[in-house]
């Protein structure tokens, strides 16, 4: 009851004109920044930090919270429309969102993504408002071995996108992990695979790889095929979403939201593993799992709801314990510190109005996201009507800018273009690129958690299995791998039995 009363006060403060406008502006900035590949909402949050000096602490948090919520969804707009994920967490949106665009269902795909994201985000914001404390206690039990196990679970989910080619997909993922090892090692400070090139010592950023593999290869295909990406004409205005669509995705949204809330609350896990794991689980759980990758609504809805469900959940450890679990929440922590506010249990006692205004703002932001998302998506949808040649030219320039913007380094542009050529070759030869990108994103995290776990636990590798949470997650990863491989194993076993029968006959 006390929480409800405080939340009511929070809503009152958040609906004050100044505060409300701050959320709206933040949301728009985040959605646009998220939709532009390479810019990323985290960069937008970092660039917005100086502007928060002139705001009150609460306003600063509302502004950054708006960017965060909008940005996490925004990345899917470009993923669905041009097959270029605006953020790493939007990678799964390419797998089933873009095929819908290719079928002329871009507006329906966006509507599904938006609905799923808003639902996930809203549930997560409610979780933040009512169950922050117990979730924070659970998150505190995670240490390096548990993070390693969670990352392994994320990597294993690559089997879900393997399309009956688990070996090729695993090789692709391992190549991605190997690419992620280029540069100075995080524990020993020794350069690896730099081949005497100084710029290689800084490593290969996953954003650069992602832009190259997806954007460049896609524009080459656009040029070579004269593909028509214009949205199919529909009678309805706005985003076309029927009640039957909502019914179709309800299970996927629920599962995705649950996974996102669970993973989001763990510092360091974040939206990307959440979205990828949700996709993998949904592929197994859905009756249309075999069709995933061809534009299946559930395959789009599950990761979308999961990634936005991590937004509110990621703020649980930030506000309750003062622990930022991601780059975005670290910037929010910085903003709070700049204003002399120390997040943690004391904040709930000292300034509950501020805390509950943030909670209310997260709920409002997720509801407003539907409006902001429709606006930005309509704008991008209009862009899709431009001739493919023009669209492709600007995608290339934006990709180059995105790669350059990562570290303001021309070397990254060269790496991006090299991966563009590699991505095109991979596409033409049928070698999967999505597992490679996943490897580049999660590989460095897995290595860091693995090496620091061993360093912290006297090089005892059994720690991954003997610690209860880590052991359970690794067991889940094993079950997940077997679950994913089971249909293929059944087919192979059937084939062997048939051959034996034929030779015996």
């Amino acid at each position, binding site marked *: 009851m006390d929480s409800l009363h405080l939340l009511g006060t929070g809503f009152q403060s958040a609906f004050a004109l100044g505060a409300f406008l701050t959320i709206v502006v933040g949301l728009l900035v985040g959605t646009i920044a998220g939709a532009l590949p390479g*810019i990323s909402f985290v960069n937008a949050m970092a*660039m917005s930090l100086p502007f928060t000096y002139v705001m009150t602490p609460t306003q600063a948090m509302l502004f950054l919270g708006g960017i965060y919520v909008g940005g996490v969804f925004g990345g899917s707009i470009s993923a669905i429309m041009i097959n270029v994920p605006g953020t790493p967490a939007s990678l799964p949106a390419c797998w089933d969102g873009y095929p819908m665009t290719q079928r002329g269902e871009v507006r329906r795909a966006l509507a599904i993504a938006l609905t799923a994201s808003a639902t996930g985000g809203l549930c997560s914001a409610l979780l933040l408002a009512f169950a922050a404390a117990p979730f924070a206690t659970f998150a505190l039990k995670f240490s390096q071995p548990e993070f390693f196990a969670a990352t392994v679970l994320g990597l294993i989910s690559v089997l879900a996108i393997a*399309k009956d*080619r688990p*070996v*090729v997909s*695993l*090789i692709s993922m*391992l*190549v991605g992990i*190997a690419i992620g*090892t280029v540069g100075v*090692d995080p*524990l*020993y400070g*020794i*350069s*690896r*695979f*730099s*081949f*005497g090139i100084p710029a290689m010592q800084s490593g290969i950023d996953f954003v650069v790889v992602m832009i190259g593999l997806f954007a*460049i290869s896609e*524009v*080459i*295909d656009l*040029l*070579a*095929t004269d*593909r028509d990406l214009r949205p199919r004409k529909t009678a309805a205005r706005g985003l076309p979403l029927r009640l039957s669509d909502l019914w179709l995705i309800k299970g996927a949204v629920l599962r995705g939201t649950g996974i996102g809330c669970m993973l989001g609350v763990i510092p360091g896990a974040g939206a990307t593993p959440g979205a990828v794991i949700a996709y993998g689980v949904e592929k197994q759980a859905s009756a249309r799992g075999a069709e995933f990758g061809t534009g299946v609504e559930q395959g789009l809805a599950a990761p979308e709801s999961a990634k936005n469900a991590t937004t509110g959940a990621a703020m649980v450890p930030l506000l309750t314990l003062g622990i930022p679990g991601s780059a975005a929440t670290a910037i929010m922590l910085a903003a709070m510190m700049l204003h002399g506010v120390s997040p943690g249990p004391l904040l709930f006692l000292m300034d509950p109005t501020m805390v509950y205004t943030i909670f209310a703002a997260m709920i409002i932001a997720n509801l407003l996201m539907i409006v902001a998302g429709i606006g930005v998506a309509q704008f991008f949808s209009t862009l899709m009507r431009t*001739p*493919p*040649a*023009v669209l*492709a*030219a*600007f995608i*290339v*320039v*934006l990709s*180059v*800018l995105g790669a*350059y*913007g990562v570290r*303001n380094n*021309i070397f990254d*542009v060269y790496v*991006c*273009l090299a991966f*563009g*050529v590699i991505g095109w070759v991979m*596409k033409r030869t*049928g*070698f*999967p690129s999505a597992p490679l990108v996943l490897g580049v994103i999660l*590989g460095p995290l897995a290595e860091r958690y693995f*090496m620091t776990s*061993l*360093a912290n636990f006297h*090089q005892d590798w059994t720690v991954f299995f003997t610690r209860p949470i880590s052991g359970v997650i690794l067991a889940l990863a094993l079950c997940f791998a077997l679950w994913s491989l089971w249909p293929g194993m059944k087919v192979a076993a059937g084939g062997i039995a048939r051959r034996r029968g034929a030779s015996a006959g």
Partner: protein
Amino acid sequence: MSGEARAAGAGSGTALARRLAAPAGFLVAALVLPFFMLDGAHAPRGVGLGPAAWPQAMLALIAVGAVIWLLQELLAWRRGRASLTAAAAAEPAGETYSYGKAAGGLVMIIVYGALLPIIGFPLATAIFIALWCFLGGLRRLVVVVPLALLGTVVLLWVFMGVALMPLSRGQGVFDQLSIAILQLVGIY
């Protein structure tokens, strides 16, 4: 020969070499790359697994995977089945693919990247947009030229003006030209 077997190109030595090229390439790379991992620097001994352990483990797994892939390809070839990657590489129905245009596009993108630090972002981008549109079939100069110029100005405004990205201005005379362009559009 069945359709599947024809797709597999069973019986042809070239087809077999082609389908084994990728796994063999990965195998060779995984076996050779460990020798080029650390340049000159020596890994600290006696302290944990060392910096080479993780990448070496990944390369070893790639090698194992590549061997399995090789065996699978050989088995599929013997049975007259298509390559593991052939189905994924198949063209979408009703779509013709112009490899000439694709090659032209790849060359243009690489040249654009190479020219960026030499002639600067404003000039390289305007030329690139115009040429790409031309290659893509948009050949009306009254459309292409204003599109390239306006597009470049908008990009300059967003990325150099608002986001303050220090994009390349080029070298020598191109640096002066870029500064003049930036002054003209009001960014400098």
